[in-house]
């Protein structure tokens, strides 16, 4: 198993009032899966993604990543996992301003122990998302859809096992959004595990499995039938 959450609880203490945002999550994701996490805002889906993505730690519970318990990992250990094993794609792209597309994509390699030829790797990652012709553009000179594809290239550049996409189409028009989703699907077909957080059913339909979370609990966990996936795509393209 690539990801195993065992009875994960996350609670916040607000001046004596303890709020449980996650109330004992159990979830396993195998390598190569394409999972959508759905739920309304405030359901705890973002908190869950942060914990799975090692941006946050659970209050209690065990998290096994690639069958290794991560409980005693230091902050720098977690930073290394984020750098080498995980790629993030955010709703608001989060590109560095006044920086070229190429340098934005090369950024994670700066923190990596195996840098290699950073420029060449960043270039091939950009080619993989169809932006090989925009290398020297500044990050503010390209469209929203292109920005999100740059962000995907940045997530890919360290060749991670998992890509976390948090509302990747949230700030995009439907055409750019569908391009981004097709790239994610293609990456999944090439073997990458994709975990997608969204509240949009049509976006979630690109996944092969939908986990629904409500009030800090998983309330549904179902595979998406192939027929439905195709159907949703046709609907989108129509």
């Amino acid at each position, binding site marked *: 198993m690539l990801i195993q959450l065992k009875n994960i609880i996350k609670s916040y203490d607000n001046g004596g009032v303890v709020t449980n945002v996650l109330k004992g999550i159990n979830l396993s994701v195998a390598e190569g899966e394409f999972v959508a996490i759905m739920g309304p805002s405030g359901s705890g889906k973002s908190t869950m993604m*942060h914990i799975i*993505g090692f*941006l*946050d730690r659970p209050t209690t519970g065990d998290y096994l990543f690639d069958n290794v318990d991560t409980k005693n990992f230091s*902050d*720098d250990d977690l*930073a*290394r996992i*984020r*750098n*080498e094993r995980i790629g*993030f794609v*955010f709703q*608001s792209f*989060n590109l*560095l*301003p*006044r*920086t070229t597309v190429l*340098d934005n994509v*090369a*950024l*994670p390699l*700066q*923190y*990596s122990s195996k840098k290699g030829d950073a420029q060449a790797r960043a270039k091939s990652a950009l080619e993989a998302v169809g932006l090989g012709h925009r290398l020297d553009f500044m990050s503010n000179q390209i469209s929203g859809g292109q920005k999100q594809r740059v962000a995907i290239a*940045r997530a890919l550049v*360290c060749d991670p096992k998992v890509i976390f996409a948090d509302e990747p189409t949230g700030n995009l028009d439907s055409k750019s959004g569908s391009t981004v989703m097709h790239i994610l699907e293609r990456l999944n077909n090439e073997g990458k595990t994709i975990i997608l957080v969204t509240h949009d059913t049509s976006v979630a339909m690109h996944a092969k499995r939908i986990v629904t979370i409500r009030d800090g609990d998983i309330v549904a966990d179902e595979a998406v039938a192939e027929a439905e996936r195709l159907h949703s795509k046709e609907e989108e393209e129509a």
Partner: protein
Amino acid sequence: MSTYLKQVKRGISSNPSRTILTTLGIMIGIGTVVLVLSAGEGFKSYINAQVDAFGSNTVIIQTSVPASTKSRNSGSDGSANNSASNAVPITTLKNRDVLDMRSLPNVKNSYGAALGQKVVSYGNISKNTFIFGADSNRFDIDKGVIEKGRGYSSDEDRSLAQVAVLGHDIAVDFFGENDPLGKIIRVGEYNFEVIGTYARRGSFGFSNDDEQVFIPITTLQKKILGVDYLFYAVAELSDNTKADATSLDIADVLRRNHYIQDPAKDDFKVQTQAQSLDTFNTILRAVTFLLIAIAAISLLVGGVGVMNIMYVVVTERIGEIGLKKALGAKYNDILYEFLIEAVLLTLLGGVVGVLGGAAGAFLISKVAQSFGFAWAFVVPLWGVVMAISVSMIIGIIFGVFPARNAARMDPIQALNKE
């Protein structure tokens, strides 16, 4: 490292005018330090030239009001007890003393000197100027260069010859482009033949050699002043490392000649070059220290300014810090990034400060030189190295707190700020 620099360049270029304002305190502080050190070196060169003007490897014998008289007279601290600056003239230093000290083993040469003031005229030009009298030996010891003609000989000195060597400026005033040699000038009631002129020397403190008339000491004593004593004497040493021992020997000779048993009643003071320089250096060090202490306040304020702006920068870039952490930046990656930025800010201020300080010191030297002072423009390398190092250290000290704030930031909270 180059990627760090790229990041930092991006940060600094995002708000160039703020960057300049931030580093202003450092610029002023470092500029002041470099200016003070350079001007200090310039002043030192001037003092050295002044001390050296009496000749290399020399000791100076000045007349001095004896301690007992002094306490009765003024109760001063002894710094102003030479007779030249005192109402009581000391008349005991004689030509014989100068000859006697010359027989000491380490004394190679010596001369006595006195100074008078007279109206000197040539044609219809007249000037009230100093008449400097000295043994002919002075031409062998003193650093002045005779440009035209010659100095007077010991025979001329002994025979009260009325011959004069002119300082550069007074020669030009009297004769312009014409040849001054062989011309007759009037000094007081006497006619003097001009036998030489000096090259330009520049002024030394209160006296300006270029405006003076130089004549044999005996001529000055007998014909102009009507006295038989000297104002001061200079001894040239064979071995300057024995200057202290030799000055004691000279003091012994003078005490014997002046019938003094108690050194406290000395009517003279023997000062080596090292002692003369010591006094100046002590004052110079004190002044330098004071000015650098003031500059340090500016550096402190500048450092706080940099710290302040780094806190602002960290707040501005919270989202960016969150992103970098999400992409795998470790504590040290973020820490170094901000630390390097702070150090580059202060380094920038330091470099501009060094250039500004050096420019200021250059201006001072030019102004001093225009007034005729032998003031060199020197920027001490150690001062530059120190200033640059200090500016970098300030960057580290005042950058580390904001940088630690940034490095400690929780990635999610930072990301959510975006």
